């Protein structure tokens, strides 16, 4: 376990080095964060156009959480990049598991997403007249982190399938987070969708976590919040387990048919 944590630490340092080569705090704040804040404002303004504060509340809270999904699923691009850099063969030969590196590849971006979402949660509600139950609302960033982790696990799972089709990585990234933003209760309640689609959303990340945040903000029963958050964690864990199995399968297949080197 300690060895794996050490691998994770070095993986994180490498990820941070790459991330900070493209983003400085200035570019992050003035291009990425501000874009995400404006994205949430765009949807909140639709609520204002609909002429209902209830719609503004719903759309703003949903989108403040949802913008994090973009960063959380960037792991799809990063794992494909890792595979293309040809390091997999070395990792398979090393005594440590390749899973730690692959599944931890996008944690820095997850941090960026959670930070952006938290900033949006602190800054935007007063601008749109959304009332929050302070000081209890301070717990919401923790819930955003749980949702982020779940979205990240879903992203790693998608990544494990996309590794075989690297040219589809951008398509996979966009479709992955757009599915969450469209169907998981961000803009309209999941009850709006047909039964079969609602069943699908119940196994997607964001659905339960976002519902928990909404209940919490509305000062609903704590038990409902906890159950919903628990479901979000379970959904995330399930996606993570599938991702781990899928990555292992890819490596086993690669060792069997000698295609592992072709990742480079």
């Amino acid at each position, binding site marked *: 376990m300690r060895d794996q944590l050490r691998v994770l630490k070095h993986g994180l340092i490498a990820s941070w080095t790459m991330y900070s080569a*493209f*983003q400085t705090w200035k*570019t992050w704040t*003035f*291009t*990425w964060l*501000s*874009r995400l804040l*404006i*994205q949430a*404002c*765009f949807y909140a*303004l*639709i609520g*204002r*156009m*609909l002429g*209902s504060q209830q*719609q503004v509340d719903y*759309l703003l809270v949903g989108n403040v959480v949802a913008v994090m999904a973009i960063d959380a699923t960037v792991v799809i691009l990063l794992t494909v990049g890792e595979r293309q850099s040809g390091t997999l063969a070395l990792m398979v030969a090393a005594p440590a598991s390749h899973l730690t590196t692959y599944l931890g590849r996008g944690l820095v971006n997850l941090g960026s997403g959670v930070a952006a979402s938290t900033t949006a949660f602190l800054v935007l509600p007063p601008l749109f007249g959304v009332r929050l139950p302070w000081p209890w609302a301070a717990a919401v960033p923790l819930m955003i982190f749980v949702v982020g982790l779940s979205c990240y696990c879903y992203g790693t799972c998608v990544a494990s399938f996309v590794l075989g089709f690297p*040219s*589809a990585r*951008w*398509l996979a990234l*966009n*479709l992955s987070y*757009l*599915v969450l*933003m*469209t*169907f998981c209760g961000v*803009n*309209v*309640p999941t009850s*709006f969708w047909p039964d079969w689609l609602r069943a699908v959303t119940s196994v997607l990340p964001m659905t339960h976590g976002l519902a928990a945040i909404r209940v919490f903000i509305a000062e609903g029963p704590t038990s409902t919040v906890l159950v919903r958050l628990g479901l979000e964690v379970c959904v995330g864990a399930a996606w993570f387990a599938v991702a781990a199995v899928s990555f292992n399968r890819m490596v086993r297949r690669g060792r069997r048919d000698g295609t592992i080197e072709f990742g480079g």
Partner: protein
Amino acid sequence: MRLFLSGVRTQFWLIRRQPDELLTLCTIPFTVVMMLSIVMHAARPDLVANAFLAPTLIGLWGFATGLATTVLVGERWTSTLELGMAAPGAVHSVYLGRISAVMVLGVVPLGETWLLGRLLFGVTPAVHHPWVFWAAMAASVFAMIGTSLLLAASMLLSRNSNNYLNFLSFPIYLLSGVMVPVQYLPEFLQPLSHVIFLSWSAELMRDAMAVGPVAGTGWRLLAITGLGVAALVGGRVLLAATLRRARELGVVTYA
């Protein structure tokens, strides 16, 4: 003209070879579902026109920032910018041709939006003034070509252009009122909208879909076209200046 057409042909050939560049077409259905689900859930059929226009114009802008604007940056990445600059022909016309080819495809999201609205939600908004609507669409595509050239030339000034391209999405959608009319923005932001051609396009196209008469069609079309011409001229001048500077400093690869 020959160089321009050569650019058009090259771009269509590239798109055929790399269909994943048509990513925008795959993301539009989600925008359609998001916008239409919001207005249908709120029981506001009067806003269906807004929900149809938003994905159409977002798609047009998406083609510009996702593909047209990256034409020059892509050339730099593949180290073919130097070869283009060394060629005897005027390279600007070729790039303008490539950008125009992409922007012609920017009309596709319009059909996609109408089709999906019909198939998924069973709604199709009426266009009560079709000539005004199509004239506004044509003017918008032209203005988008000019804007794309300006953006493409600007992106050459930075080695990290993706950050800026990522930024140029929702701020533009918000300021141009593609979904929510500009009057819902704070007053201090509203003047900014007037310099973005999409705000004129969105308003004129929404009016063209409404029952009432469309006021000032000519002036509004002129505003879209005028902003397009200004961007085209600005883009041409900036591109020439950027490439000249790169030559003088010997930094073509990092132009």
